[in-house]
């Protein structure tokens, strides 16, 4: 079965890469971990390594060409199998591949089938093994000897993993290169892969999740918009969150007259700032998180970790997706500081200038859809956080105050929480706390 080598996505914002130097030629034998080609993006050069042992049968892009993320770079197969290149006028390509195969066969070393199989299993290049039989033919003993003598087999980038671990890694979309093996001689076993899949860089919400091999589209499918860049990261992270955390969403409607008045007063007093409702809610949420540490927590390595810092992420909608810049130590910031920092973060987010430090380390997220006339919704938790607050619009409604029907400014808050960490009553108390602050902002000072 031939394997397609594709342009990897090496960063959140990478959509394409330029081919640098090919390190292997069509017809060359390659081992797992062999550098195939150098690719360039921004001011970065990176090597794409082979994930398969076999023969390089087809090169899809020449040096200097630009290939989009997940675009075909090369095909690795056995020396003699028929190679089909999807999409391109495959006749010349196939011819080239066949010619290459012929030359590859000539270079093939003599080895017993069992020796070949062993070499393939161990991910070693059979060309490197010296044959001990009379005619130089390689037998199993030679491969074993090579394995014993080879110093630290991982040093050259090869990955030792059990076949089952490889299969699981493929299913879970885990890059074996990033997995630390705990088996004999650092061999990667199933448990290592599962661990790696369960702990995707918890402190870095902006990091793209490990890439799953692209699903093969049915031959008849129309070319859609490729799932790349930020869209791909969002897709992976949202799916991961929904698969990982049992979400529960609760909501409550709040009379926010006092907060409306409070905002009016604040903005009247400080003419140089215009504090938004999101700023005020951020402040209130931070104060409430201080009282409910279990909401400001994550599951890391099967343990509940309550974070000391309160870092509130605020979702910012972009034309092509969204990002969640993080306001650090939100509980220690005054309203003016929150306002200035949030404005700066939103502006940077829209001009694609957010630094790493502004995207990482969130402990709770706020998503405000009020400006789109949304009342309530069920936001998806931003892993590895344990909850997210959805803020609805403020709208005037008839309300009952002191047994009289009056016009009041009402707002609905929706809180989604991870039921592995937080129970309904705790989440409700936390939401109630924010509600109390909104009903009477002064109570935040208590």
């Amino acid at each position, binding site marked *: 079965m031939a394997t397609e080598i594709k342009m990897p996505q*090496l*960063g*959140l*914002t*990478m959509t394409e890469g*330029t081919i*640098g*130097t090919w390190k292997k030629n069509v017809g060359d034998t390659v081992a797992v*971990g062999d*550098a195939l080609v*150098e690719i*360039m*993006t*921004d*001011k*970065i*050069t*990176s*090597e794409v*390594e082979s994930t398969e042992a076999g023969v390089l049968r087809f090169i899809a892009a020449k040096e200097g060409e630009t290939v989009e993320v997940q675009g075909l770079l090369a095909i690795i197969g056995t020396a003699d199998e028929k190679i089909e290149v999807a999409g391109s006028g495959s006749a010349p390509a196939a011819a080239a591949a066949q010619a290459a195969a012929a030359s590859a066969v000539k270079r093939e070393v003599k080895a017993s089938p069992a020796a070949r199989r062993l070499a393939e299993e161990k991910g070693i290049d059979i060309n490197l093994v010296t044959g001990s039989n009379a005619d130089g033919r390689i037998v199993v003993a030679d491969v074993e000897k090579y394995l014993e003598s080879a110093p*630290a087999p*991982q*040093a*050259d*980038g090869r990955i030792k993993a059990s076949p089952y671990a490889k299969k699981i890694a493929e299913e879970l979309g885990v890059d074996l*290169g*990033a997995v630390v093996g705990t088996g004999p001689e*650092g061999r990667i076993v199933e448990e290592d892969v599962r661990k790696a899949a369960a702990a995707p*860089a918890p*402190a*870095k919400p*902006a*990091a*793209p999740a*490990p890439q799953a091999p692209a699903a093969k589209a049915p031959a008849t499918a129309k070319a859609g918009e490729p799932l790349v860049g930020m869209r791909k990261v969002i897709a992976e992270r949202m799916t991961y969150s929904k698969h990982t955390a049992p979400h529960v969403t609760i909501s409550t409607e709040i009379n926010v007259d006092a907060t409306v008045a409070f905002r009016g007063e604040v903005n009247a007093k400080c003419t140089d700032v215009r504090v938004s409702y999101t700023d005020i809610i951020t402040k209130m949420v931070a104060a409430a998180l201080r009282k409910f540490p279990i909401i400001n927590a994550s599951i890391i390595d099967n343990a509940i970790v309550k974070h000391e810092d309160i870092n509130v992420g605020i979702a910012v909608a972009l034309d092509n997706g969204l990002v969640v810049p993080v306001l650090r130590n939100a509980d220690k910031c005054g309203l003016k500081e929150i306002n200035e920092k949030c404005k700066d973060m939103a502006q940077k987010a829209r*001009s*694609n*200038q957010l*630094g*790493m*430090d502004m995207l*990482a380390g969130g402990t709770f997220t706020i998503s405000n859809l009020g400006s789109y006339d949304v009342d309530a919704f069920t936001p998806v938790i931003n892993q590895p956080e344990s909850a997210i607050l959805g803020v609805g619009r403020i709208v005037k409604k008839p309300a009952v105050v002191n047994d009289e029907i009056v016009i009041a400014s009402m707002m609905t808050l929706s809180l989604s929480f991870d039921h592995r960490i937080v129970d309904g009553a705790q989440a409700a108390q936390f939401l109630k706390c924010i509600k109390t602050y909104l009903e009477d902002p002064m109570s935040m000072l208590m």
Partner: protein
Amino acid sequence: MKKTCRLLEFERTAYDYVWDLQKEMVQQRRSGQIDDTLIMLEHDHVYTIGRAGSRNNILVAADQLKSEGITVVEVDRGGDITYHGPGQLVGYPILNLTAYGKDMHLYVRMLEEVIIRTIAVYGINGHRENGLTGVWTKKGKIAAIGVGVKGWVSMHGFSLNIHPDMRYFSMINPCGITNRPVASMRDFAVSASRNEVAHELQKQFTDVFDVQITPARSKENGCNTA
């Protein structure tokens, strides 16, 4: 517990020597023989040409380069041509990027952040320019960045102009950019020494990458260490 990053400091060193050392350390890092390492040093006069570069961006004849004592090296990093030499602070982080977000662009942005914060300490306002990796000031580009990555381990890195002889930049189109000037910290009347700036930069590196810096064991790789 915080990640640790070893610090390996050199005085003025030939480019080739450190390039070989980097390649060796990338292999060692990949196989887990060493921890993350930040190499910091100053180079002898050298023009390095990245994968995207060409000798066409050298504007003087080969014999002039020779008489000036400048070598030209074609290297395996991203980017075009740049100059390294005395008065520049050069940093080569050998990091396993899987522990830092596994995002190469993010990594480059983090390096920029380190430099922006470092020069801010000296009152210089640095910024990013869309599509032009490096750190820019109102007087021009003050730091160049070019990175090579193998199996998510980084090599090459950044160079910050403290007070290099700017004449050497005029002999090339730095980074292949023809119409943008190169700046140094001296242009902003900063007279700090390389060691002072290096010390400040290490502090910022510690913050941005959230690591603890430890001196590398001396005699390792047969070199003098901090």
